[in-house]
């Protein structure tokens, strides 16, 4: 097949599989285990600085899992925004509020009970879910095929995620911009205006 006059490499993906499915599974499981270890460390470690850095690691491991699960666009967004910007924002907050965390005063029994019950219900809920990577799962049977088959030709972008994001669901992305704008205005209202008032008082 040719895309805009240039041949696509490789010529046939079924004829020459790029990756082994077994290796994919092993990497997926290993990264998920690392993720669980990081999450447990976040619960147990007291220093807030360590907690924030562990969250950065957690986001980066998640980005790695996204690559294994074929979501490359999501992976680099998560690595840049989740592991990068969010961690920097949290560190900036820590610089203003301090790294000390007061020892827990309440018994962990009640939250633990709530969490275990909720987790058990969710675990029970997975019984009805389709198996992982099942091509016949309901999520793959509706509009996805239409986007995959017609998307690149209708929009003219080889990346289907970009095609859906910027064209088919363009209004959704416009709404996202509105949300980010509102959040920016909110942050400025909380921090920017107050600083100016303090400056007036000093002068």
């Amino acid at each position, binding site marked *: 097949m040719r895309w805009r006059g240039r041949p696509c490499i490789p010529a*046939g993906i079924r004829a020459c599989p790029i990756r082994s499915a077994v290796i994919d599974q092993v990497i*997926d499981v290993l990264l998920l285990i690392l993720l669980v270890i990081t999450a447990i460390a976040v619960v147990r470690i007291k220093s807030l600085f360590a907690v924030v850095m562990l969250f950065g690691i957690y986001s980066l491991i998640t980005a790695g899992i996204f690559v294994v*699960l074929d*979501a490359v666009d999501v992976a680099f967004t998560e690595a840049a925004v989740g592991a990068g910007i969010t961690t920097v924002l*949290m560190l900036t907050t820590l610089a203003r509020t301090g790294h000390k965390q007061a020892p827990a005063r309440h018994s962990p029994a009640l939250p633990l009970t*709530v969490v275990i019950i909720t987790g058990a219900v969710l675990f029970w809920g997975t019984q009805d*879910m389709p*198996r992982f*990577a099942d091509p016949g799962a309901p999520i793959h049977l509706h509009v996805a095929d239409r986007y995959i088959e017609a998307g690149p030709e209708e929009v003219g972008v080889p990346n289907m995620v970009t095609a859906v994001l910027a064209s088919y669901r363009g209004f959704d992305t416009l709404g*996202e911009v509105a949300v980010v704008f509102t959040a920016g205005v909110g942050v400025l209202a909380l921090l920017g205006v107050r600083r100016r008032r303090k400056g007036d008082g000093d002068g």
Partner: protein
Amino acid sequence: MVLLGQFNYWVVFFLMMTGFYVVIARGNLVAKIVGLNIFQTSVFLLYISMGKVAGGTAPIVLADGALYSNPLPHVLILTAIVVGVATTALGLALVVRIKEAYGTIEEDEIHAKDDSL
């Protein structure tokens, strides 16, 4: 990919509950926001796991007859990540503001100060 069964979903729910536990058991507001983010990231993982197709590849045009993973969850989660960082920024700004008004970001101490007014 069939061997894996529902392992991904179980891990996702474990991580979700870990984040939930941090939100309700920790008194420190920054730790609560980290917990919320862990919860949120596990939801991203749930969606992306559902979009995977056995033997598929990333949804970027390759060749006729190539099998792609489902691009729709990817689009939804791209939007969610950006909205997530916006809400996190707003939450952290609130934390900084609370620190300046109360002198602490520990939930118990904030309640104690409110009660003493």
